[in-house]
């Protein structure tokens, strides 16, 4: 295990949550897993899994995929989910596959099993999915032009046929992806200091924006792309990219919030986390708030705030635990009251909303 590819993926699998994706089609409201929250668990030695929490927090299924599809393998290191209409696309980075299920019933529809290489995140635009692929990883200390640093690509999937019909080579590393105003924006926190811009119509790379290293979570709102940068050991910042002219402005975090991460914008508030606390600031604020809304207790040495999202007046927190046992998801109200906690799967890394 230590030497295996899976281990390497474990090393880089520090995913948290995905920004809301564009939904091209409208979903139907029916089925056991409708009207609720999906918690993606990346798994470790076993397969990834998906837990379901109903919107009223009253109904819970720990492993919805297995409950519906039996012994079928969802894949190793499930990284993220994106939606299109009634379909949920579950990306398993460790198994190079995307499992497509009906998001309401969780019944398997199809799998995409070729054309992917360590897939990470996906968005949908005009009947096509655009999925970042980390492809190979460079060895430690490899030169900057090593294959592992330059072979990442976006797989273009035709959602009518579920086939990877082309690849957009990025000549760089790629991880998170956002679709906004007809463009794709891509960040990668370990070996990149820029936002890559792709025109999905022409499949051409446009001039990228240098914003500095360690850019990870991001979300677009009202023509501005908010990007969280979390360099290790120094104060992070939120970089605001005005998409019309690519101009940058920054909000630098105070030292007390070192290691801030997990940007999520819900109704005009930018939420983020540092340590085991959640903070929020208005999108128009010029200074970051360092007053915690919620703090939770974690015994996880290093899996604190492994998954995070704010939606429908709830704050959702997933704790990585010890990465070998089922761990916890917590639901808080916006004023910081714990509403409920759930024992989800191993390594819960994100929340997705089926409403």
């Amino acid at each position, binding site marked *: 295990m*230590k030497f295996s590819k899976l281990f390497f993926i474990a090393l880089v699998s520090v995913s948290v949550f995905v920004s809301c994706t564009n939904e091209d089609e409208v979903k139907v409201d029916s089925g056991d897993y409708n009207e609720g929250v999906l918690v993606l668990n990346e798994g470790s030695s076993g397969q990834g899994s998906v837990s379901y929490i109903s919107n009223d927090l009253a109904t819970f299924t720990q492993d919805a995929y297995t409950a519906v599809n039996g012994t079928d393998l969802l894949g190793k290191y499930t990284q993220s989910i994106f939606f299109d209409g009634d379909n949920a696309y579950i990306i398993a980075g460790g198994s190079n596959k995307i499992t497509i299920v009906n998001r309401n019933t969780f019944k398997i529809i199809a799998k995409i099993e070729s054309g992917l290489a360590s897939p990470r995140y996906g968005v949908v635009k005009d009947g096509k999915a655009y999925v970042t692929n980390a492809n190979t990883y460079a060895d430690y200390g490899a030169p900057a032009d090593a294959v592992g640093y330059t072979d990442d690509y976006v797989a273009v999937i035709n959602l009518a046929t579920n086939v990877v019909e082309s690849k957009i080579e990025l000549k760089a590393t790629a991880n998170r992806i956002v679709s906004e105003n007809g463009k794709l924006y891509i960040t990668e926190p370990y070996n990149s200091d820029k936002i890559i811009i792709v025109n999905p119509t022409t499949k051409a790379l446009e001039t990228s924006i240098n914003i500095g290293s360690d850019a990870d979570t991001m979300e677009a709102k009202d023509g501005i792309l908010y990007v969280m940068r979390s360099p*290790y050991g120094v104060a992070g910042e939120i970089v605001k990219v005005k998409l019309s002219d690519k101009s940058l402005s920054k909000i630098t975090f105070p030292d007390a919030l070192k290691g801030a991460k997990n940007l999520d914008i819900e109704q005009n508030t930018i939420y983020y986390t540092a340590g085991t606390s959640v903070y929020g600031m208005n999108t128009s604020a010029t200074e970051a708030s360092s007053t915690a809304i919620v703090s939770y207790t974690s015994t996880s040495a290093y899996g604190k705030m492994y998954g995070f999202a704010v939606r429908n007046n709830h704050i959702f927190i997933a704790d990585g635990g*010890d990465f*070998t046992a089922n761990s916890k998801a917590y639901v808080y109200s916006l004023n910081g009251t714990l509403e409920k906690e759930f024992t989800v799967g191993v390594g819960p890394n994100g929340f997705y909303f089926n409403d």
Partner: protein
Amino acid sequence: MTFKKLLFCLFVLFCQLISAQNDSITNLKEVVVSDRTLYSNNKSQSIQMLNDSVINTNQSSLTNLLNYNSVLYFKEYGGGMLSTVSFRGTTASQTAVIWNGINVNSQLTGSADFNTFTSPDFNTISVKAGGGSVSYGSGAIGGTVHLNNNLVFIDKFENNLRLDYGSFNTIAVNYKMALSNKKWSTQVGFSRNSSDNDYDYLDLYTWKGVQRKNQNGQYATTNLSANVGYKIKPNAVLTFYSQSSNTDRNLSLVSESDSKTKYINTFSRNLLEYNATKEHFSSNYKLAYLTEQYQYFENIDSNDFSFGKSETLIAKMDVAYQLLESIKLNGILDYNRTKGFGTSFGDNTRQIGAIAIKAVENYNKKWQNELGLRKEVSSDYDSPFLFSLGSSYVFNSFYNLKVNLSRNFRIPTFNDLYWQTGGNPNLKPESSYQAEVGNVFTYKKFTLSETLYYIKINDLIRWVPGKGDNWSPENTDRVNTYGSETILGWANSYGKNGFAVNGTYAYTVSKNVDTNKQLFFVPYHKATASFAYSYAKFSTNFQYLYNGFVYTRSDNDPNEIIEAYQVSNIGIDYDFGFFNASKLGFQVLNAFNQKYQSLEDRPLPGRNFDMYIILKF
């Protein structure tokens, strides 16, 4: 295919007839065992010896031999893939594999992959339960597995050839030659095992309804060995043991869409040894040079790989002095220099010096007391003071009581210390205290050994997700493990009828002290049984393995387990009377087609077949 194989066998047979040699005398009078104190100095612990007849009735991998004949528990990443052990509820790096007296666990991972060893390459394989760090160093916490080549100083020329052909295009060749006289002894061995290993996963289908099978699981293991001994004087012997091996495996896929990867392990092991005795003194000098290398191919179609390599030089001096008629003292100096380098951990050298004192007292013929003390000094970490204290008392021909107390350790590996990024240079060795009581009952040809043990392990090293998003090892866990081991054996013959019955049973509780949960991948129960019956030139055997369920998660989630399994093998062979011995055999493995796996999503083969021919000439 079978017909072709038969033809091939006949062809080989014919060639051998032409070159047939004179019968040799197999009355072994003078045998030089490389690890000469294994049996004599460890009477206070249980040692189970598997001789070549047991070795020959099993599949050739060491995993298979020990899985069906000992209390050791194995998990395999698919048939023939990486195979790791748990002995007495300990981790894979807490069982040491000892090759001719030298610890050959990986310097990089700390553990041994039992599918890289081919058991017929050795004359005897012994399983010593319990701590042995005073004699065998790092990793001898749960127990040790001893692979020995024994050199014989009599006039002899013997060849031994075994050919196997089985399901999934599994082919094995094993050839051994022994040539010796009263002064010289030589052994040469060659073995190669390969398989397409594309077995079906019983009752498992893809989402499209297609039968699932083991994909990308092909492997080939090649071993070469040469052992030479020379008697310089009647009381002085120079021996040289050499083995090199290459295991080339693709790694079985879990999902059909997984990346196809490949892993190549190469080992070379060389040991020069000089042994002399003079009146009350005897001295033993060892010089060993070991290398191990792995190459990991992230994509089987590409030549790019990452690798790790270690080169180890060991020099050891062991001087024994017969202090009194009843007391023998050994003073041991040990120096070990290991250089490790590779894609993920730079270039590092580690030096370890050790001093040990051992005393054996034979109070009388019935009572033996053993004492051992050892202290290591290393450039990398602080080493605990190790000891071993034991006693064996034979009450009568029926009952033998054994008691042993020891402190043992497992040093951090190169991966633990230097892996980039994440390696933690501040790790301490894992250490353990162990107490055991053994009861051995012997009645006529029946033996029953029952051992109870308790082990307390501190500073267990575990990789946890670390700072800056990397995983990093820490001395985090404390584990208490206790249990019992039962080994029984009976063999007898009545006229032309021969019977042999063997069985083992292990009950193991291994708990994390902080959580009070059973360690994952440690079964509470494991049992093996074998029955052999022979009549004249026919012999049959039946093997049975029961492996209790194991948790796969640290929280002992009852939904996340590997279910218990029972696997049976049936074999029959016939000695058709050429040369000294020449057997034609047939085996049905997993005869009852049990669906089972030892790791999640890694199914093992259903019913499959093997046929073999063994020629001794």
